[in-house]
């Protein structure tokens, strides 16, 4: 099967992007350099094409009840115009996907899911819906191909967002201008005669916005943001920087920290599991893990000496008189902000406390590292 391309493929080529495979898509990994784009996002602003991500729409009187049974966080907390990070689990509590759920209307929800999981998610949700008693009151559409998506991230994004999307919102969060959006709020704005969704969220640990727009106008939106941001040192940024940015702030990436055999509790995402909301798929296992603990825990670590950057699947070792292989790196890289190797990985809970010394095996040698609190990088 050939790789899929977003509507911005030609725009990336024109900007000299280096293109790589990611989750079945041919995506820009970098334009200038990962470090350069990473720094732009930490200091000014970066614009990412995230059109590969999936969008799933649920409407109808029973949409809320169905999704609240299928997702781990409590959707009832969302008024129209607000979103939340949440997870979708199987019966064993294993993560099917992690996603953002937005309440776009009283009876309409938009889920933004990982590109690599769209097919699995759709099948899973269809199967769940097929046995849901009020299934005739829920409409489910995979609208991924109708939407392009962008992430505008960085401390200066707020300075020019109003120039990109002037005027008050027309739906969703009712606000006078785009820069009034607060964290996780989503508003609908007009752009060239079309409706676009603008949400105050992101995946970099910086302030910023994510934009969902009809695929026919996504290039116009991309160009408009790039030109409005030019005076604010905005740069196009690729998936390479997106990965180093999210790793520094310990956001999970599906396929690394999360998979069908790992639960949100093990991944350290218990605060997005609303056990008190009533029954939902996976609840029994998650409740037991929350009460009794887990066998593995996702931790963050930093290398303490000069060594090669840690990479996914490198073994993690305990130290002391009886060193043992205790786990594996899930995500690892050289931190552009800190200048050292950093990562996340799974270890037994007895080794999960910040300050615990571990070693990362790199090509047969072991490099000293220490467990650190999440996030690894904190602003200021």
């Amino acid at each position, binding site marked *: 099967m050939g790789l899929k391309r977003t509507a911005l493929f030609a725009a990336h080529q024109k900007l000299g992007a280096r293109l790589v495979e990611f989750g079945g898509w041919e995506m820009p990994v970098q334009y200038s350099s990962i470090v350069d784009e990473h720094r732009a996002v930490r200091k000014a602003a970066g614009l990412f094409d995230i059109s590969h991500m999936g969008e799933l729409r649920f409407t109808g009187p029973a949409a809320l009840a169905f999704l609240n049974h299928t997702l781990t966080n409590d959707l009832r907390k969302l008024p129209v115009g607000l979103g939340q990070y949440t997870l979708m689990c199987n019966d064993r509590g294993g993560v099917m996907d992690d996603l953002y759920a937005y309440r776009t209307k009283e009876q309409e929800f938009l889920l933004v899911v990982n590109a690599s999981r769209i097919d699995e998610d759709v099948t899973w949700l269809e199967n769940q819906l097929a046995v849901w008693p009020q299934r005739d009151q829920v409409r489910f559409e995979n609208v991924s191909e109708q939407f392009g998506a962008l992430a505008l991230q960085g401390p200066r994004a707020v300075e020019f967002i109003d120039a990109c999307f002037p005027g008050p919102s027309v739906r969703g969060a009712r606000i006078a201008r785009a820069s009034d959006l607060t964290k996780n709020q989503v508003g609908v704005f007009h752009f060239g005669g079309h409706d676009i969704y603008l949400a105050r969220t992101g995946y970099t640990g910086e302030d910023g916005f994510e934009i969902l727009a009809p695929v026919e106008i996504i290039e116009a939106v991309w160009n408009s943001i790039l030109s409005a941001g030019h005076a604010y040192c905005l740069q196009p940024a690729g998936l390479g920087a997106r990965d180093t940015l999210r790793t520094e702030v310990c956001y999970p990436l599906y396929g690394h920290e999360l998979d069908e055999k790992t639960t949100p509790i093990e991944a350290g995402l218990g605060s997005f599991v609303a056990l008190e909301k009533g029954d939902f798929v996976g609840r029994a296992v998650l409740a037991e893990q929350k009460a009794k603990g887990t066998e593995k825990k996702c931790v963050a670590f930093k290398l303490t000496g000069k060594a*090669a*950057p840690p990479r996914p699947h490198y073994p993690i070792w305990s130290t002391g008189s009886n060193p043992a292989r205790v786990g594996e790196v899930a995500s690892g890289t050289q931190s552009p902000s800190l200048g050292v190797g950093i990562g996340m990985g799974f270890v037994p809970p007895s080794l999960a406390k910040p300050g615990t010394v571990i070693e990362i095996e790199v090509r047969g040698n072991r490099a000293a590292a220490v467990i650190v609190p999440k996030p690894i990088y904190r602003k200021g």
Partner: protein
Amino acid sequence: MSSKVPLDLKYAKSHEWVRVAGDVATIGITDHAQHELTDVVFVELPPAGRKLKAGEACAVVESVKTASDIYSPVSGEVLKVNQAVVDQPALANSDPYGAGWFFEVRLSQASELGALLSPADYSSQIGE
């Protein structure tokens, strides 16, 4: 993007350069290679005294994103390694043919030099 290919060097298909002086060869990675890697953050070199065979993976260059093997273009014993590029890996990006050199070997099979690429052949390999 146009890469520098100095005319006084020989090249390996795997993007290393070789500068020959008598029976000593100095080896590093090409401008094209450093540009493809971008942001070199770690360099691991073979210890002095190690005997290398031509084509052997003997060093590792890590960028933010990936680890890449470096192959010795020639056979011989490692005489010296460049500690400066180990301490400051970015030298491999900023000065790949100068301060960013990797290691020196005493050639054991001088005839191997004939199999390396000329600057013109290497330029055409990288499409320039």
